[in-house]
């Protein structure tokens, strides 16, 4: 028996061997490695975005300071916002999903591994392109939503806004790729027995996120594409004198922009469910209600966008509809919070760092959610829109609502990813610094907005009386930055020196905890089966596995979408250089087009050649009839 197992393992190791060496970095198709790349890259961009924020806080620490000038300041907040939204928040969530979803549903890789590799490279190129231009002094400077006509050819000559619009196209393309991966993997590759009512809540949250991406991202790609055309080849989509409409730009942008917030936030809800389950040792209260809430949030997320545009002077009745929708979306989130509180109430709670971040989420996200209800009200919105009140609100929603759970998730899955435990003591110090620093930075901003401070001002006059609160907010940067730094130091140290974690240090319930930490390249020696909503807790002592799959090909089991009954076997591709090359040619097309329109044509031809390489059929003997 053991010898047989040993043989299978050896065969699987050979078949699923990761790509090695320098070239291997470009050809890798393993979802775990690509997932980790997403996470690490996104955290690098997070650090850059954080440094930009710190410089802005220094500039605003007192009235009429001269740390930076208006031109650089405007680049700073544009690049900060664009980085945090497009290069950090969305990709980091996607990276974690790319790593975890295949493991959680019990399969060996995502549905389209080459496409997955392509998605990462295109994201990386988008980020590098933006920062190359920024460091060359040509960072975009019209804000992260780049309203026309300010961002149009007349008022923003030069390459700055072109950089921004192409970066959007890159990163949204990568988000679309990931959403396809996640959806197909979650619906077609689940382990036998994992019917839809047994899917882990994190996977549900990523499925909802993926559907939102599929409907939201095309809107912004069209928007940034039209903007690029207006700028590069003088179309007039948004040019009022020629019949275009700048308000149309805003509608398209926010039709993406509001769902975007939920695209960042819903994965965080999934993290919380996983963490709460593991640390209360019971299933999350009200599974079906939780799933329904996620789906409801996903739909409602598309009905709120006009609350970003209340000051544009749209008709009153229409605005009331969006007020109602914006308020109602807090119902499903409220219900989920009640369900988690119920879970904790009835659970056997242990508090470790991931759980601390979840509790911080309860406290601070609540503030962000409640100020969100205020913003939904049209008259209140007229006063606080585009002020520091809004800046405070969305940082409470996005940092407390998404980044706190993300930090919790990083600690929670760190043992799975690295095979070692993080240092608990250090992580708690870091937690308290982050928690205190965050509230110090962002709470005063609510009051600043109420007493008249608009957002996106590079300075303010002393007689306005905003100096004190601004100084307080800037002071808070110190503990916040120190806390985040400590967290990174802790991860770096623990990766080498941490205590070995073993497969399941938290005694958690989902399938990824059944394999070694870090998991082998093939994830599961035998595809597992599932007997309940909590795969490991509900497993019989002799829970069967699927046998009879080939060990000499990269095979995965495809199952039916609803019941996860086995359907057929599917062979997945081996490492390949083509995804990198296609990403490269796509990148050349998009960058080149900014400088010379013909690059668009030339790049398309290059990309077509690269795609032919990608799809070139393999010479391989037909499988023997069996």
């Amino acid at each position, binding site marked *: 028996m053991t010898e047989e197992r040993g043989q299978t393992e050896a065969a699987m190791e050979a078949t699923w061997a990761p790509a090695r060496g320098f070239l291997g970095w470009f050809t890798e198709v393993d979802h775990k490695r690509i997932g980790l790349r997403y996470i690490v890259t996104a955290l690098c961009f997070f650090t850059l975005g954080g440094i930009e924020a710190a410089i802005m806080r220094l500039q605003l620490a007192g009235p009429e300071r001269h740390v930076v000038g208006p031109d650089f300041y405007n680049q700073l907040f544009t690049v900060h916002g664009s980085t945090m939204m497009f290069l950090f928040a969305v990709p980091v969530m996607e990276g974690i999903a790319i790593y975890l979803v295949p493991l959680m549903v019990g399969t060996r890789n995502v549905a389209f591994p080459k496409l997955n590799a392509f998605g990462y490279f295109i994201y990386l190129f988008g980020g590098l392109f933006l920062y190359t231009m920024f460091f060359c002094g040509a960072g975009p400077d019209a804000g992260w939503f780049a309203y026309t006509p300010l961002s149009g050819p007349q008022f923003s000559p030069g390459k700055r806004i072109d950089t921004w619009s192409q970066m959007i196209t890159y990163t949204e393309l990568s988000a679309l790729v990931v959403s396809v991966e996640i959806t197909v993997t979650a619906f077609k590759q689940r382990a036998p027995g994992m019917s839809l009512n047994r899917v882990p809540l994190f996977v549900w949250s990523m499925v909802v996120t993926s559907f939102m991406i599929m409907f939201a991202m095309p809107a912004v790609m069209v928007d940034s594409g039209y903007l690029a055309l207006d700028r590069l080849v003088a179309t007039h989509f948004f040019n009022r004198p020629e019949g275009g409409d700048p308000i149309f730009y805003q509608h398209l942008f926010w039709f993406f922009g509001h769902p975007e917030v939920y695209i960042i936030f819903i994965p965080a809800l999934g993290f919380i469910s996983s963490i709460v389950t593991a640390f209360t040792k019971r299933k999350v209260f009200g599974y079906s209600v939780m799933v329904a809430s996620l789906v409801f949030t996903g739909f409602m997320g598309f009905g709120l966008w006009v609350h970003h545009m209340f000051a544009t002077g749209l008709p009153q009745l229409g605005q009331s509809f969006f007020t109602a929708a914006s308020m109602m979306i807090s119902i499903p989130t409220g219900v989920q919070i009640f369900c988690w509180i119920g879970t904790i109430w009835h659970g056997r709670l242990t508090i470790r760092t991931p759980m601390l971040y979840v*509790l911080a989420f309860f406290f601070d996200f609540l503030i962000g959610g409640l100020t969100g209800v205020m913003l939904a009200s049209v008259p209140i919105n007229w006063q606080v829109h585009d002020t520091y009140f809004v800046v405070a609100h969305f940082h409470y929603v996005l940092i407390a609502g998404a980044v706190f759970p993300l930090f919790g998730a990083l600690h929670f899955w760190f043992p799975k990813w690295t095979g070692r435990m993080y240092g608990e003591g250090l992580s708690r110090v870091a937690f308290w610094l982050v928690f205190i620093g965050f509230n110090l930075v962002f709470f005063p901003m609510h009051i600043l907005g109420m007493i008249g401070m608009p957002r996106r001002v590079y300075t303010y006059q002393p007689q306005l009386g905003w100096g004190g609160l601004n100084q307080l907010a800037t002071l808070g940067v110190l503990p916040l930055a120190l806390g985040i730094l400590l967290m990174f130091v802790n991860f770096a140290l623990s990766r080498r020196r941490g205590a070995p974690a073993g497969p399941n240090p938290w005694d958690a319930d989902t399938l990824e905890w059944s394999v070694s930490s870090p998991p082998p390249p093939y994830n599961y020696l035998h595809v597992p089966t599932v007997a309940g909503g909590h795969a490991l807790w509900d497993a019989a002592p002799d829970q069967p596995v699927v046998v009879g799959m080939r060990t000499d090909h990269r095979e995965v089991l495809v199952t039916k979408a609803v019941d996860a009954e086995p359907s057929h076997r599917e062979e997945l591709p081996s490492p390949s250089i083509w995804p990198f090359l296609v990403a490269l040619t796509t990148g050349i097309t998009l960058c080149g087009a900014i400088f010379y329109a013909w690059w668009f044509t030339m790049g398309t031809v290059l990309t077509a050649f690269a795609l032919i390489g990608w799809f070139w059929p393999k010479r391989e003997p037909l499988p023997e009839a069996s």
Partner: protein
Amino acid sequence: MTLGLPGIQSTLHPAGPQAQRILDLFDVFLIVTTVVFVIVVVLTVAAVVKGRRRREAIGEDTRGMKLAVGTGAVLTIAALITLLVTSVATGRAVGTFGGGNPDQMEIVVTGHQWWWEVTYPDPQASNTVRTANEIHIPTGQPILLRLATRDVIHSLWIPRLHGKRDLIPGRINKIYIQADAPGVFRAQCAEFCGLQHAHMSLVVIAQTPGDFMQWKIHQQAPANDPATPQQAHGRELFLDLPCINCHAVTGTDAYATLGPDLTHVASRKTLAAGTLINNHGNLAGWVSNAAAIKPGAQMPPIPMNGPELQDLLAYLENLK
């Protein structure tokens, strides 16, 4: 509830019915959301205490807990409906305020990068008043502001009188404001509009109807003629230099509208859209090299020697 906070541009210090209604609504929201916040935090803390004491988790979803979560959801919905109804009611009151009066006083506010043009239209064109970065209004009556822009999107925000409304190319937005008592209220552009968005402010000066009429009649008069030889030389310079490419002074050959109308520039409180107090030194600095004070400001530096500058200033300072 002002908590001793600074008030020159504050939503917490309303000075008219529109801002007052919105603040009242905000207070309702603040109270309801604070109650919700306290309840949820208390529940969370209680759950944590309870959960940490438990030796064995209760695995199934009990009826009691279902009832509790259900109650929570129902209360959430009830609170939201209350807030929604209050909000829509206030929205209607604020939105319909001031409408329907045919003798409505109208002011046109036009946004420019980065200053405000303020026009008081009059059926008789020569009685139209043009000024910049100051809106004078009579107290105690609704005033209709028509909002337009010459370039990008701006947003007019006078926190002590009303919420903001955008200035959008190709559209005219309307907003009604009213001040209850005389006073000076600072206002600022609230939609990012480029390099000097931070220095695009204005003041609203509310006056008793009598004072306001006096002000308006004075503004309708053409510019003062030079009273001294120095001022006369200043006017010559003004008309010879590139100034007239952008600025207007009624009663002279300067009638361009790209920059602020200077007919009564000396009567204004600030320069450069609220950036500087309007005094001799600031005016000198601004005229010599605007971009040094407000980087990106579109007025080019005009080469002049010292005496020429003094003559020009003497002329401008006489434009009361």
